[in-house]
């Protein structure tokens, strides 16, 4: 019983790492530009599909496909930004509508290119078991990408707090006019945010490809997951994304072990709603909306 619980928590933490990776790009763009990119899940899935094609046509491993996925996802991310930048009014609402439509376009493009067949990597090395201390089981992919997730969360946090461009991204988010008076070109900063989000989405996509199976509808599901975790974390909080993701992951894993597999998503949603009822601003969100 206890071991079952411990295993569930361990699995949940690892899954949380993966979820954080999926959510991070969305959280960054949401926190800095107040734009909810509903096509984010499709970017993650696109990275996975590029890795699939690379494996099939170029016979390279998913890890070696990362640079290729990065290029493709970055191009699409910039395209999304260019389209978004034409919105002149009601940016928050209109960007929701625009990116939702873009998500549908991307999903159907992936359906056209790769068909609805379920794909998975032939590098089964990733799905083989890894054991921690003789008792805790997971796949190799889960462990590797959990660590990758930690590195990227820490890296993003350092970039935002310590680097010139990261600070500029935060400044534009805080007060756009004032940032311009500091010599910041807001357009450049926003493109940069999208590129970083694309980078994060790429790693999430490779994690997805090595750990699970992929098919076109997954993009939408990923966006929803990312959005829930972003809101749960509290707007603009990077550490919150990791914590929120792990809470969801653990809740799901415990539900699978002790209740029922089919209720895992429901359990995650219930946790989400419960947190929001108690703390509407999210786990680490600021109390009031700044002007």
């Amino acid at each position, binding site marked *: 019983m206890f071991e079952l619980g411990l295993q569930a928590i361990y699995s949940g933490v690892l899954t949380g790492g993966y979820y954080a990776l999926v959510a991070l790009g969305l959280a960054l763009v949401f926190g800095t530009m107040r734009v909810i990119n509903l096509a984010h899940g499709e970017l993650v899935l696109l990275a996975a599909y590029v890795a699939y094609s690379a494996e099939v046509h170029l016979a390279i491993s998913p890890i070696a496909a990362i640079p290729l996925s990065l290029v493709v996802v970055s191009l699409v991310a910039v395209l999304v930004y260019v389209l978004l930048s034409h919105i002149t009014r009601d940016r928050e609402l209109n960007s929701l509508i625009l990116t939702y439509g873009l998500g549908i376009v991307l999903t159907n493009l992936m359906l056209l290119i790769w068909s609805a067949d379920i794909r998975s990597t032939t590098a089964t090395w990733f799905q083989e078991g890894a054991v921690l201390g003789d008792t805790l089981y997971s796949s190799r992919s889960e462990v590797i990408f959990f660590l990758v997730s930690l590195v990227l969360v820490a890296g993003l946090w350092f970039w935002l707090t310590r680097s010139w461009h990261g600070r500029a991204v*935060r400044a534009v988010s805080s007060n756009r006019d004032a*940032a311009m*008076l*500091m010599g910041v070109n807001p357009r450049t900063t926003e493109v940069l945010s999208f590129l970083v989000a694309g980078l994060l989405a790429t790693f999430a996509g490779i994690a997805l490809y090595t750990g699970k199976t992929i098919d076109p509808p997954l993009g939408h599901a990923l966006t929803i997951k990312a959005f829930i975790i972003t809101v749960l974390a509290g707007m603009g909080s990077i550490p919150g994304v990791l914590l929120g993701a792990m809470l969801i992951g653990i809740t799901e894993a415990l539900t699978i072990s002790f209740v029922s597999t089919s209720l895992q998503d429901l359990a995650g949603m219930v946790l989400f709603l419960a947190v929001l009822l108690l703390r509407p601003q999210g786990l680490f969100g600021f109390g009031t909306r700044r002007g």
Partner: protein
Amino acid sequence: MQHPALEVREVQAGYGPINVLWDVSAAARAGTTTTILGPNGAGKTTLLRAIMGLVKVRSGAIEIDGQPRTGNATWDMVRDGVILVPEGRLIFRDMTVEDNLLMGAYPARSRPRAASNLDDVYQLLPRLKERRRQLAGSLSGGEAQMVAIGRGLMEEPQIFLIDEPSLGLAPVVVDEIFAILRKQKELGRTIVLVEQNTHMALSLADHVYLMQSGRIILSRTAGEIDINHLHDLYFARETAT
């Protein structure tokens, strides 16, 4: 004769269909303090924002050291050393005091000296050093104004535009702020100061402009100013000749 550090000539500018500045011409000589006075709505803030490229200039010219800079983007003006401490401070409320000051060093030319400039600003404004890790949004009005000025100083201004620094501050705090500005004047900075507090502004000014309804109605060196005449014009008890 040398070009003025900053000059605007017959500038018309405004917001959308509304024109605010009508044929505004003014100049600031290097190393001097130029003060722009006037009641609310006179266009003083619009003039500074137009210089910084935040408000669209419809006609007229803006020049730095005789070089045309009309229509430049805000970040290009900053790169040329024209720095604005805006009305209302516009500090980054959800960033720390130190992060606010460091944002001042963002222009590429200032970055190499960011650390030493930060030390200088903390020496000048010790209260900021005490509160360096505090969120800027939690500061008092006077402290926020110090952050705004400190942030401007981090940008190593060639031309320092300051918009209504005394707004909303208690008299004791206003004295502190003006002491800081006086120090900058003594260091030889080229300052353009917009103020409603005429007493303070005149004590610093080398040259005075008075604006009303989007026009310059008076231009005098500080020594020539008759304060009563100024107040008559200010409150439109008489029209300018």
